C-alpha cells in the first residue's frame, strides 16, 4: 500500500466540510486587489497625482511598514503595494486551514477513526496541503483575472497573483510542519502564527529601515520584490516554491516519526492543585488569553493607524473626491482627525466583536457540557453569568483604551504633541464603548432568551459593518443607518458633541443584558 492511498477520498472529505468556508475566503481575498485597482483608477486618473502619491504617502514609513515598499507610480505598482497586506492574510488563512484539517482532526480523535481504514500514512497531510495549495492557486488565478479585467497589464497581474498565491503555499506548508510538532491544534497554531509574525516583522524592519537583505529573509518580503507591473523579476517565484518543497520534505518524515496523536514536542504539565477561587477566577483563566491577544492586536493597530493619520491627511490634499469621502466617513475638522475618527469607528466595531465572542463563550460552555457541573455546585446562575458578562463589558473598554492610547502615542509623536493627543485619542477610543456594549448586550439577550439563535449576534455585527461602510456611499435612508448603534457614536474630536447618545446607548446595552440575564434564570440549561 502506498503511503498516499486514500488521499483522494480525504480531499473530497475536506472539500465537503469546507464547501462554504473555502470558496468564501478564496473569493473574498481574490476580489480585494481588483477593488484596490478600481479605486486607484478612479482616485488618481492623471500621472502627476500618482507620482505625488507614490513619492509622498506611499513611502511614509507607517504605510511601508503595513503594506511594503512601492516600486513605481503606475496604477499597477500602487495596487500591488496596496495589496501587500493581503499576503499576510492569505498566509494566515492557509496555515489555519491546513492545521484545522490535520492536527485538529487528530486531537479530536477523528483522524484515528479514519486511520483505521485503508489510508496511507501520508494521506492526511497530503490531502490538507493539496486542498490548500489548490485553493491558493485558484485564488491567484482569480486575482489575475480580476486585475486584468480592470485594465491592468496581464504580465504584471500574473506576477502579482502568483506571488500572492505562493505566499499562501509557503505558509500552508508551515502549518503542515507545525502540526507535526505539538499535540494540540492550539499549540500548532501558536507556533505557525509566530513564524508568520516573525516573517512580517522581518519584512517590516527591512522595508522601513531600507535594509533590503533583511526583507529578502522573509517569505512575505518576496511578494513585493517580484516588482509586479514594474519590470517583473520572474525568478523570485522560485524562492517560495523551493522553500515549500523543503518544508514539506521536513514535515513528511516528521509525520512518520511520531505516533498518532502525539507531537514531537512534549506536552506541558499543569499544577497538581489549583488556586481558582470561584467562577470569576475560572472566567479569568478562560478569557485572559483572548483579552491579552486582542489588546496586543488593538495596540499594534493603534500604533499603525496613529502613524498613518498624518500621512493620510497629506495624501488627499488637493483631491476633492477623497476629501469628500473622508468627510462622509465622519470627520468634521482636519482631515487627519477625520481619518482617525473614521478608523477608530471601525476599531469600535472590532471591539464589539470581542464583546460578542466573550458573551457567546457562555453558550460554548453550555453546549460543551462544562456549565452543567459548575451550576450543580453552589454557584448561582447569576454569578456564573456575571463572571462572563464582566469580560463582555469590560473587555471592549480595555481594548479600545489600548487602541486609543497607541494612536495617541504615534499620532502625538507625528504632530509633536504627545501629552495633548494622548487623552484626546483615548477619549475617541472610549467613545466607541457604548455602541460596542449594545452588540454585546444583544448577544447576552439572545443567549438568555433564544440560546440556539445566539450566533445571530454576529449577524448584527456584520449588518453594522455594512451600514457603516456602505451606508453613506449607497445613500441609504437615515432610519436604516440609525439601526446601527455606531451611527449614534458622536465625533468627540469635533467641538459640538453631547454625551446624551452615549448615555442612551449604555442604557440600551444594560437593558438588553439585564433582560437576557433574567431570561437565563427561567430557562432550561442546557438547551440544546
Amino acid at each position: 500500500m502506498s503511503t498516499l492511498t486514500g488521499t483522494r477520498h480525504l480531499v473530497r472529505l475536506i472539500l465537503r466540510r469546507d464547501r462554504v468556508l473555502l470558496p468564501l475566503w478564496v473569493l473574498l481575498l481574490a476580489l480585494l486587489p481588483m477593488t484596490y485597482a478600481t479605486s486607484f483608477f478612479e482616485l488618481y486618473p492623471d500621472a502627476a497625482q500618482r507620482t505625488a502619491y507614490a513619492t509622498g504617502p506611499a513611502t511614509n514609513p507607517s504605510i511601508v511598514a503595513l503594506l511594503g515598499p512601492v516600486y513605481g507610480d503606475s496604477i499597477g505598482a500602487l495596487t500591488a503595494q496596496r495589496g501587500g497586506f493581503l499576503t499576510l492574510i492569505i498566509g494566515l488563512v492557509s496555515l489555519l486551514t491546513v492545521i484545522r484539517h490535520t492536527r485538529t482532526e487528530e486531537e479530536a480523535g477523528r483522524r484515528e477513526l479514519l486511520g483505521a481504514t485503508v489510508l496511507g500514512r501520508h494521506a492526511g497531510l497530503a490531502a490538507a496541503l493539496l486542498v490548500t495549495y489548490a485553493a491558493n492557486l485558484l485564488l491567484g488565478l482569480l486575482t489575475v483575472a480580476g486585475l486584468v479585467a480592470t485594465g491592468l497589464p496581464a504580465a504584471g497581474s500574473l506576477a502579482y497573483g502568483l506571488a500572492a498565491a505562493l505566499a499562501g503555499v509557503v505558509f500552508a506548508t508551515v502549518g503542515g510542519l507545525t502540526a507535526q510538532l505539538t499535540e494540540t491544534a492550539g499549540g500548532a497554531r501558536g507556533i505557525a502564527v509566530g513564524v508568520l509574525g516573525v516573517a512580517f516583522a522581518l519584512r517590516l524592519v527591512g522595508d522601513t529601515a531600507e535594509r533590503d537583505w533583511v526583507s529578502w529573509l522573509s517569505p512575505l518580503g518576496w511578494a513585493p520584490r517580484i516588482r509586479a507591473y514594474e519590470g517583473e523579476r520572474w525568478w523570485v517565484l522560485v524562492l517560495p516554491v523551493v522553500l515549500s518543497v523543503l518544508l514539506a520534505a521536513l514535515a513528511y518524515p516528521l509525520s512518520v516519526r511520531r505516533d498518532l496523536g502525539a507531537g514531537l514536542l512534549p506536552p506541558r504539565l499543569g499544577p497538581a492543585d489549583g488556586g481558582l477561587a470561584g467562577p470569576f477566577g475560572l472566567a479569568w483563566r478562560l478569557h485572559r488569553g483572548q483579552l491579552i491577544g486582542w489588546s496586543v492586536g488593538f495596540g499594534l493597530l493603534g500604533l499603525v493607524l496613529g502613524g498613518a493619520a498624518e500621512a493620510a491627511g497629506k495624501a488627499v490634499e488637493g483631491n476633492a473626491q477623497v476629501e469628500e469621502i473622508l468627510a462622509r466617513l465622519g470627520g468634521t475638522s482636519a482631515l487627519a482627525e477625520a481619518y482617525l475618527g473614521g478608523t477608530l469607528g471601525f476599531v469600535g466595531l472590532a471591539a464589539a466583536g470581542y464583546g460578542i465572542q466573550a458573551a457567546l463563550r457562555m453558550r460554548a460552555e453550555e453546549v460543551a457540557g462544562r456549565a452543567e457541573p459548575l451550576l450543580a455546585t453552589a454557584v448561582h446562575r447569576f454569578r456564573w453569568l456575571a463572571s462572563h458578562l464582566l469580560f463582555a463589558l469590560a473587555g471592549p473598554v480595555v481594548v479600545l483604551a489600548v487602541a486609543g492610547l497607541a494612536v495617541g502615542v504615534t499620532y502625538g509623536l507625528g504632530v509633536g504633541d504627545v501629552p495633548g493627543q494622548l487623552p484626546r485619542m483615548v477619549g475617541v477610543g472610549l467613545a466607541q464603548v457604548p455602541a460596542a456594549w449594545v452588540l454585546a448586550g444583544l448577544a447576552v439577550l439572545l443567549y438568555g432568551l433564544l440560546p440556539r439563535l445566539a450566533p445571530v449576534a454576529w449577524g448584527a455585527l456584520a449588518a453594522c459593518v455594512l451600514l457603516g461602510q456602505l451606508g453613506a456611499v449607497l445613500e441609504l435612508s437615515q432610519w436604516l443607518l440609525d439601526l446601527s448603534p455606531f451611527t449614534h457614536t458622536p465625533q468627540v474630536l469635533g467641538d459640538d458633541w453631547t454625551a446624551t447618545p452615549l448615555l442612551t446607548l449604555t442604557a440600551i446595552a444594560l437593558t438588553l443584558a439585564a433582560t437576557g440575564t433574567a431570561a437565563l434564570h427561567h430557562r432550561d440549561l442546557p438547551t440544546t
Partner: protein
Amino acid sequence: METPIEVAGLVKTFGRTRALDGLDLTVRAGEVHGFLGPNGSGKSTTIRVLLGLLRTDAGAVRLLGGDPWRDAVALHRRLAYVPGDVTLWPNLSGGEVIDLLGRLRGGLDPKRRAELLESFELDPRKKGRAYSKGNRQKVGLVAALASDVELLILDEPTSGLDPLMEEVFQQWVRRAKRDGRTVLLSSHILAEVEALCDRVTIIRNGRNVETGTLAELRHLHRTSVDAEVVGSPDGLADLPGVHDVRVEGTRVRFDVDNPALDAALRRLTEIGVRSLVSQPPTLEELFLRHYGTITDEPAGVAR
C-alpha cells in the same frame, strides 16, 4: 431524617417530546439507589431536574427537603454530581478542576482527595485536553467523592473506566454509604447495580416500571428451570404461570413465575427428575423483559 429525593408524577416535555411522563422516584436516606434504564429513557433529564437545571412541567420534586429549582444554590452545597460525560477545560489541569469544583461546593477533604487520586491512579497535573475519557471521569469522581456532602448524584459515572477502576469506584461508593451518605447511581451496568444498590428504580420512556429491592424485583419474576426427566413431560405447559416449554427428548426447559414454582416442581417430581438446574433471573433478563421485547404485559406491573 428527611427523605433525600422525593419525585412524584414528574412530567418534562421538550417541544413535542415527552421526556418524563409521570415519573416517581424515592431515594431513602443512607441508601445506594440504582436508577436503571436504557439510553433515552429519561435518567439524565430526571437528574437535571433534581439539580435545578431544568424546569418541570408537572409533578412534585423535593430534594433534601427543598425545591431543587428555587433553592438550587443552598441545596448544591449539600450534594455532589458527576455527569456521564465529564468535559474539562482544555487548558486547566485535572487538579485545578478538582479543587475548583470542591471549593464551589464548599470545600473538600484534602486527605481524601489524595487517597482518591492514588487509588484511581490519576495524574492531576495533566491538562484537560490530555486526559482520556476514563481519566476525565476520574477527575469528576475524585472531585465529587472528596467533597463533604450528604448526597451523591452519579449519572453513569463509570463510563470509560476499566474493570479494575470500576472495582475501585465500588469500594469508594461503599465507603460513602458507610459514612452515611446517600447515593443515587444511574447506570446501565447491571453488575455495578447488583453489587452496590440497596434499592432499584427501573424507568422506561420517562416513567418508572419497577421499584424495589433487588430481592423484591426478583421475587416478582420468573425462574428458569432446566431438567432431565424420566417420563414424558406432559401437562407442564398447561400449568398456570409456566412459559416457553421446550422439550428435547427427556430434557425439558421452561420459565415459571415464582408464585407458580411450587406447583411446577410438584408436577416435575411426579414425572420423575434425574437432574435439575434452576436459575434466578439476572438483571439482564429483567432488562430484556422490559426493553428487549415488546412484552404483552402492560408497563408498570409491579409498583
